[in-house]
């Protein structure tokens, strides 16, 4: 298990480094705003201000201090999960974000589930029945779905399923039925990539000697597919699934706008339009941290599934 400990240590260090870098980005990104954040906020919201009011606001927010001091103060806040207060309504950013985040996570998780349910069987089937009618039809479908923007797909789904066929509620949030369409919209954008990935890597694994050997031993085809081929496909799948979670949360912003879901994406788009910079900072920090941790966990999971990974990493 020494190899595992070594690998864990390395991954942990690079995770810590990424987190420090993230705080730098989140902090300095908001400083490239034209003018300063306070002025930008007032301008974006067409609130007439005098120089005195600006000066006072700057002092309250500590914007008149040197940049480095500001960074340290802000970092201290971040450590205790305090991202400051929103300009828009004076509430604590971290509390607001957390409340909206639970909604977005629910949406992303259901979308994730849809993705797995759709991708795994179709991917496996089109790999097994390579070059069949099913395979070609799948390829054509996913090629066109991959070209459609998710927000448009969302509107088409609303129009056809909710309006014309009247099967599901149009929009809104709260009941289990309302989550189906948004989650499906969110999932559809990521499905083409995964079906293609599962198919290619399964086909690749099928050519491996261990598959031929398993066949020679007389193991039934379904066991070979389940226990040998699919398990070997799992590693790249898990790594990119972690990546997808970030993409899903990003895509959620758009889906939430379409279906008027009170999630983080909608909240952040509002904050961006109003130029509420504490909210933007808090948002990017939270998503970044979440994403880094999910990636770290995915790497750990892969190292557990596939011992070759931790060996390779230690050798290099």
């Amino acid at each position: 298990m020494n190899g595992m400990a070594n690998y864990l240590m390395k991954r942990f260090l690079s995770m810590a480094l990424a987190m420090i870098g993230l705080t730098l980005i989140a902090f300095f990104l908001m400083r490239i705003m034209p003018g300063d954040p306070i002025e930008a906020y007032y301008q974006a919201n067409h609130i007439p201000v005098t120089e005195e009011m600006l000066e006072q606001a700057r002092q309250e927010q500590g914007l008149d201090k040197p940049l480095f001091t500001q960074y340290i103060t802000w970092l201290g806040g971040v450590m205790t999960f305090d991202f400051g207060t929103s300009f828009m309504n004076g509430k604590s950013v971290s509390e607001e974000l957390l409340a909206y985040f639970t909604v977005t996570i629910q949406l992303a998780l259901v979308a994730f589930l849809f993705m797995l349910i759709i991708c795994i069987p179709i991917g496996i089937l089109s790999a097994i029945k390579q070059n069949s009618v099913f395979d070609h039809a799948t390829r054509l479908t996913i090629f066109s779905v991959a070209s459609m923007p998710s927000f448009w797909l969302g509107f088409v789904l609303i129009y056809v399923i909710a309006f014309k066929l009247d099967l599901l509620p149009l929009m809104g949030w709260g009941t289990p039925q309302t989550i189906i369409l948004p989650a499906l919209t969110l999932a559809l954008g990521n499905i083409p990539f995964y079906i293609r990935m599962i198919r290619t890597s399964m086909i690749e694994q099928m050519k491996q000697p261990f598959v031929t050997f398993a066949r020679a031993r007389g193991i039934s085809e379904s066991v070979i597919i389940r226990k040998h081929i699919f398990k070997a496909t799992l590693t790249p799948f898990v790594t990119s699934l972690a990546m997808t979670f970030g993409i899903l949360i990003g895509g959620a912003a758009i889906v939430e706008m379409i279906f008027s879901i009170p999630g983080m994406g909608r909240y952040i788009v509002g904050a961006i339009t109003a130029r509420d910079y504490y909210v933007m900072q808090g948002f990017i920090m939270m998503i970044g941290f979440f994403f880094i941790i999910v990636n770290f966990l995915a790497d750990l999971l892969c190292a557990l599934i596939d011992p070759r990974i931790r060996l390779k990493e230690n050798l290099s």
Partner: protein
Amino acid sequence: MRINRSENSIEGEFVVRKKWAFYCSTFLVCLLFFMAVFGPWLMPNDPHVPNMAAKLQGFSAQYPLGTDHLGRCVLSRLIEGARVSLFVAFIVLAATLSISMIVGLTAGYAGGWIDLVLMRICDILLAIPNFIFALVIVGALGAGMKNLVIAIVVVVWVGFARVIRNMVISLKETNYVVYAKICGVPTWKIILRHIVPFVFPQMLLLKLIGLGSTILMISELSFLGLGITPPTAEWGMMISESKTYLMTKPELMIIPGVMISLTVLIFNAFGDSLRDVLDPKST
């Protein structure tokens, strides 16, 4: 290998079909460019002039694809959208290509701590999901075409710089580069003569394949009101403007969406078939 291929009729047919896919998609890409370049002459009406007397009209001779909620010609706005999307996509392509070339070549060729620092920066930038990062950058800079380009470039260059760096590292070990070094060829000349000509076409290919997703990103950000700003027409924005009329006049939403999908589809097909034609081994 050549003889083998012509003897094997199935594989031969496959190659021919791929050639045709390439010709067709190239033709369609050219058509898109034609539409973008000669847009002003193709538009039946001014895309910005509202005509409240003729709002939300159906298809007619004067307005071939009808009018939107302000009575502007949908077809003209569609053509302007093509101009905007392709223009932004190509600026993004040129900018990312040059930035990632510079960073990738420096990191790969210099190696050592320069490589370490640059790659750590890349790691950190990759830690934030693309779309969210672009969203926040536009948020910090404000909406508009220039800021949209900056945001997409900042987000996209990282991955490519990585690929270039890895390519350069393996190229550095090749005999001809080692030989050039021994002969005392200056570093800049080695890079320009022996490394860039190999890396550049492959990068261009990768970028062309990625054009579709760049166009998607432009329309997604514009849909959220954080990309192209009115009065300039953009497909994503047109869809967002048609939201209110979804139930009464779905064409307003369907037409720009079909346009985006077709454009992205054409570019994806073009990229895929270009790769197949240039490198038949990969499939």
